[in-house]
């Protein structure tokens, strides 16, 4: 044993030193130049700014981007950009919003500036904002965003909204005829729907949306009566939607609507309907640029492009919510409740209510 420890001890010391050394050496890393560049660009007129961006991106030739659209959806959008700007090669990784935030934090904490830009849901931003990892990026591209979505724009230019996502109520029309369907969020507490309404496990985004819509007290009441109605708690939005469409249960209490709408578009006989009388909770998806980006021109070029007609049309064609142009399936008069992020203590309280009334129920 002694022999083994004799070999183990110096090796452990060496390994730990190796781990510590780069962090210590990089502790006083130089500040980013990206924000200075963006401030300079903001002073130029549109044509000149655009020219500078393209020239810079051409020199950089590369962009490391994390997309929170998944799989083919992300790849096809990036291909469109690469077709438009063939001189920028995009290194694309796709993952969930929380994982993307976690990766950026990890990389930047280790002083490894590997990611240039991320597409991230606004409700998932606070953790990154707190760490001060995002470049302030003023851009004229946001001027195109219509008034009804201008609330999504950050006054400090830390993120740039480019699409929106929705949480709403939908149901299986084979299991519930339209006249017996819920009309509002509170209707989900109706005992007629006992054990038929499905949710994901506690999800900050959804709860913040309902909190914005209802206020804290009403949200608590809703959770309480919802808990008494024995909701289905099952992980996976799309899996739940598929199960509902297959007749497993009747109602989606918290889900994106596009999955069902897309299924209905492909096969009009699909037993799916959206409850338009209940407000639809909407949050923005945004582009953020790493304050320490190694490709600031390419990052800015890509961010601006996401609000172009080309990118917005692609977003609509794929049944996601474009900020510019017509929504692919929601009517113009749909009741939309936009929301962003709230403070940590509110998030803690919302999770606490969920655990009290729904999460820990046996």
């Amino acid at each position, binding site marked *: 044993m002694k022999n083994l420890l004799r070999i183990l001890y110096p090796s452990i010391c060496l390994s730990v030193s190796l*781990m510590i050394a780069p962090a210590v050496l990089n502790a006083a890393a130089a500040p980013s130049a990206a924000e200075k560049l963006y401030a300079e660009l903001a002073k130029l007129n549109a044509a000149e700014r655009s020219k500078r961006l393209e020239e810079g991106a051409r020199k950089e030739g590369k962009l490391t981007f994390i997309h929170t659209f998944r*799989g083919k959806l992300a790849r096809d959008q990036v291909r469109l950009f690469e077709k438009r700007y063939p001189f920028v090669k995009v*290194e694309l990784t796709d993952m969930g919003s929380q994982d993307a935030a976690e990766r950026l934090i990890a990389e930047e904490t280790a002083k490894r500036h590997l990611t240039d830009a991320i597409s991230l849901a606004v409700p998932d931003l606070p953790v990154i904002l707190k760490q001060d990892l995002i470049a302030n990026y003023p851009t004229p591209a946001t001027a195109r965003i219509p008034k009804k979505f201008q609330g999504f724009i950050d006054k400090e230019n830390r993120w740039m909204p480019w699409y929106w996502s929705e949480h709403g109520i939908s149901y299986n029309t084979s299991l519930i005829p339209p006249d017996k369907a819920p009309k509002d969020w509170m209707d989900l507490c109706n005992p007629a729907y006992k054990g038929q309404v499905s949710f994901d496990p506690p999800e900050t985004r959804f709860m913040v949306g309902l909190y914005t819509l209802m206020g804290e007290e009403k949200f608590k009441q809703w959770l309480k009566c919802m808990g008494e109605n024995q909701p289905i708690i099952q992980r996976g*939005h799309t899996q739940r939607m598929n*199960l509902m469409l*297959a007749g497993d249960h009747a109602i989606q209490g918290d889900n994106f609507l596009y999955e069902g709408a897309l299924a209905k578009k492909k096969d009009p006989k699909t037993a799916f309907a959206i409850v338009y009388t209940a407000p639809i909770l909407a949050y923005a998806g945004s582009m953020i640029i790493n304050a320490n980006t190694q490709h600031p021109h390419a990052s800015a070029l890509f961010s601006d492009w996401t609000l172009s007609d080309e990118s917005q049309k692609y977003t609509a064609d794929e049944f996601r919510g474009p900020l510019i142009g017509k929504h692919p399936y929601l009517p113009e008069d749909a009741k939309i409740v936009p929301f962003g992020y709230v403070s940590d203590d509110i998030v803690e309280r919302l999770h606490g209510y969920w655990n009290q009334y729904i999460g820990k129920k*046996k």
Partner: protein
Amino acid sequence: MRRRLGLDSGGIALALIVAILIYQVVVPLLMIVWTSLKVVRPGEPGFFDLTFSLANYARAFGSADFWSATWNTLYFALASSLVSFTLGVFLAWVVNRTNTPLARLINVITLGRIIIPGILITVSWIFLASPSIGILNAMIGIRGFFNVYSFWGMVWVHALEMTPLAYLLLAAALQSMDPRLEEASAVAGAGNWTTLIRIAVPLVLPAVGAAVLLLLVYAIENFEVPLLLGGRAHVRLYTTEIFYNTARTPTDWGLSGAYSMAILLLSIALLAGYFRLVRHNERYQTVTGKDFRPRRIDLGAWRYVTCGIALLLVFVITGLPFLVVFYASFLARYQSPSVQALETMTLDNYREILNDASYSLHSLWNSTLVGVGTATVVMLLVSTMSYFINKTRVPGRKLIDFLGFAPIAVPSVVLGTAFLWFYLLVPVPILGTLIIIGLAYVTRYMAVALRFVSTSMLQIHSELEEAAIVAGGRWLTNFRRVYLPLLRPGLMAGWFWVMVHAYRELTIALLLARSQNRTAAVVIFDLWDNGSFPQLSAFGVIIFGLLIVLVLLGQAAGKRFGVQEQI
């Protein structure tokens, strides 16, 4: 007689093993222990200070929910391990030690189960046994008769997932058993049953111990089943409790570390039980210098009964879920089987996957490289480790065994993150390559592979190596020419297990994936996350076909190099 090692090739091999264990196991474990004692995140100021806190442990273990989840988990682990062990033992015995017809087919179908990704299997069981739309309920005409959303539904799905592991471990041990001991029992007048209980079972005790140990640990750390079924079954297990308590951004690494330490302690306790079970190594040495061929028991007419039961079992274990996956792969969206559903069948799912070849096929190639590479490296590593643990008196051999086993206690997400952090902090340029995933997998699968090989190693009598030493063989030659050939049943079984699991592993691959090192599992997750169960099924069928080819190649290699069976 056990060897003492000097500074020959054996000594060098030992030093290498220790170095690899430090790099691959001690450093990540150290990071996890360290993190569990810190209230700041890795990389933040104060993380490397020598001030520690038990706050994470107080938070983790101070909650009543945690203890309730722990009891649920133990109950779940015992129940599912019992079911999978019983099924695995039966199948291993039928296939390897009896003259049951269609044994090879039963073997292939059992192993085929491992190949289908876990997410697909769990979702298929939802479609089979959901109380409202379950195909099985529709077939018997009683809604809710089978309910996958229940504690026993979870036990069932997980037990079927684990049966091939018990099968593989015991099959390897049964193949390496000298039949003369059983023949002696028969000559002494004992019947088949008595011989089985009094001779065969005690001889495969290390394999039994290893199987029980691994089944329990895998059940404790299982994530897919409690995640997909547990919420609706109102059953919270240890892993889901960890997930719900730490799944915020930024991840609470301190709390995760504290939870990992609990699993680690539990695993140490189980490992201690295993050590005690196999403390008299020499009792299990059935592979000696005398030639032998495994004997098959003649069951007479009963062989048709065992064949029927085994076929039914493998149909339930592999056939049923695969049929659901195969059926779904031709649908535009999942529908219960009906004339209308059959009318909508299409090849579009396959077409779409094959049309995007640069993405999906590239990931399959990456997975093949990582799977085959990891399995080969791991088996070489653990066979050397197992030699030092079981055949020498080298000081600290139990510590080597513990370090080899310890990674099983670390949840994939924690292990993957430890690797991510490590290679972010250390200037070794492997981020975004397959190497970083391979290195993480080496640590991840070392534990199970070590049990596969140790089971076979314990059966090899030391007299073989002694004879080789007398004949002047050096350590490396003896290891290569004596041990490796005799270890082949365990090596092949372990190689297969590691290869397939490395092929389909998800959590670590997701954490370490970048644009060029995506594996098939990442694509599977993308498809699942995007809600395309039919497309995911099509991809699953393609993987199944590809892995069947790899398995058949492995089987051919096993047949070529393994112990010849008596026909």
